[in-house]
């Protein structure tokens, strides 16, 4: 399999300052509608006053190795490219919403204009020209690192090799291609607001 590209991303949450430029630049680059997100930022506060800190979790499609959306699409409109990017054929998608329901990460939404499923494509139109995705390009803290995971010389491979990382919801066996450094994911697992003793 040498020589084949496998795109992925590492998000170093230590470098994220919560500026939301990933969300904004993605919205501009991909004409993302008002009520949907391809890239977004979850924010939580940890600690008891005065020892409080904000933590940011930049999010996007995980481009899973075993993508539930690809598994359930009834018309194969969602598929995985050879370089690992999960994309949607907008001409084939019927807008049934099954993939939106099946994605454990809420990475998908029904586009109100095209009436088909829509989500992050790692900016396929940019990466096919050798450019970085818009969110990576515009990240002021350089928290997002994108590239070929199969090539040990790329920045993303080096960051991935040098740091302990986590992926989101590994228990579902989706094998995400977006990795997080220092994301403290277990603590954020409870979505019930206040969690004590975590």
């Amino acid at each position, binding site marked *: 399999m040498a020589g084949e590209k496998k795109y992925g991303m590492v998000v170093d949450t230590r470098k994220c300052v919560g500026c939301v430029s990933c969300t904004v630049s993605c919205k501009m680059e991909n004409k993302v509608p008002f009520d949907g997100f391809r890239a977004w*930022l979850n*924010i939580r506060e940890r600690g008891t006053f005065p020892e409080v800190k904000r933590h940011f979790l930049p999010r996007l499609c995980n481009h899973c190795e075993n993508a539930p959306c690809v598994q359930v699409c009834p018309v194969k409109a969602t598929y995985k490219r050879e370089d690992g990017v999960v994309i949607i054929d907008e001409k084939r998608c*019927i807008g049934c*919403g099954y993939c939106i329901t099946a994605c454990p990460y809420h990475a998908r939404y029904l586009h109100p204009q095209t009436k088909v499923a829509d989500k992050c494509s790692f900016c396929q139109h940019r990466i096919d020209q050798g450019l970085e995705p818009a969110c990576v390009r515009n990240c002021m803290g350089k928290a997002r690192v994108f590239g070929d995971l199969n090539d040990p010389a790329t920045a993303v491979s080096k960051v991935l090799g040098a740091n302990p990382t986590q992926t989101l919801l590994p228990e579902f066996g989706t094998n995400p291609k977006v990795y997080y450094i220092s994301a403290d994911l277990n603590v954020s697992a409870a*979505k019930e607001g206040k969690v004590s003793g975590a």
Partner: protein
Amino acid sequence: MELNEIYTVVNPTSWNAFIPLYIFLKGLSVGAFIVSALYTVFGFKSFRSLAWPSAVASVVFLALVPIMLFADLGQPGRFWHLLVPWYFNFTSPMSWGSWLLILYPIVLLRYTYLLYKARPAALPAPASASAKEMAATLAHGLTASGNTIKLTGLVVLPVAVATDVYTGFLLGVVKANALWNGALLPINFLVSAILSGAAAVVLMYLFGIGRAKQDKLDSNLLGLLGQMMLVLIAVEIFFVISQWLVLGMGGQQAGLVLKLLLSDPLYILGEVVAGLVIPLMILLSSRARSNPTWLTVGSVLVIAGSFLMRYTLIFIGLEASRLVG
């Protein structure tokens, strides 16, 4: 230490009420067919007079299904993509369902047509035949049940069952959803479908649809239908309790889902109390089982309950999926 979620972005779902409505109508169709098959396939003579009206009811319910499905698609004009063989996705229950929803109407219509031909008065009716006479002929049942009808019914039966249960797999394979994910959902849907179909047939029979005016209500038949519903309700209650136990002792998401369920009046008061417990109480009495008024109340509650079962399952499920990711 405290942890507060400040922003948790969750993309909106695209599913609406047409989805549970679709599953509900499909269940009515499959359930009514199975009532019809009680005589034609399984040979229970007591259900003979219901064979034809139930088959017609099954077709009528099924005729409403495509409306729901089209209403749900973002791009309804592209529905034919589901039927392009090289677009077929083996791992998608929705792909299987698309073909089942083509196959099921074909075999069901063939079955219903054979039943229609087998009636004694299938001979050309005189032009002057009044509606009353037509109604009378409808209720006289079959002259020649014949092997053809039985064999056709045997073909329809697995197709009908598959058409109903595939939705159970469709939701059951959604791994990040503690409410849906599991192996019980398909059989739960099937039991609920037969229950709602039987209740619909009971209502039709009581209100004289497909029954000749001069034919008196057969209290023996009503009692049998009542008993059948009673057993099916008991099985549904088992599924409810089973779900509570497994969710309550399950993982973090499961526990939160159970809280959502138990705090939703549509679920507790609608689906469980009005849709299952009250009909169970009514049908436990053998006198109520052959009393038209009580049977009407019980059947209406059962039908409403089986719709609520699908409605709450879909929407509390969608709510539950927001708890992870």
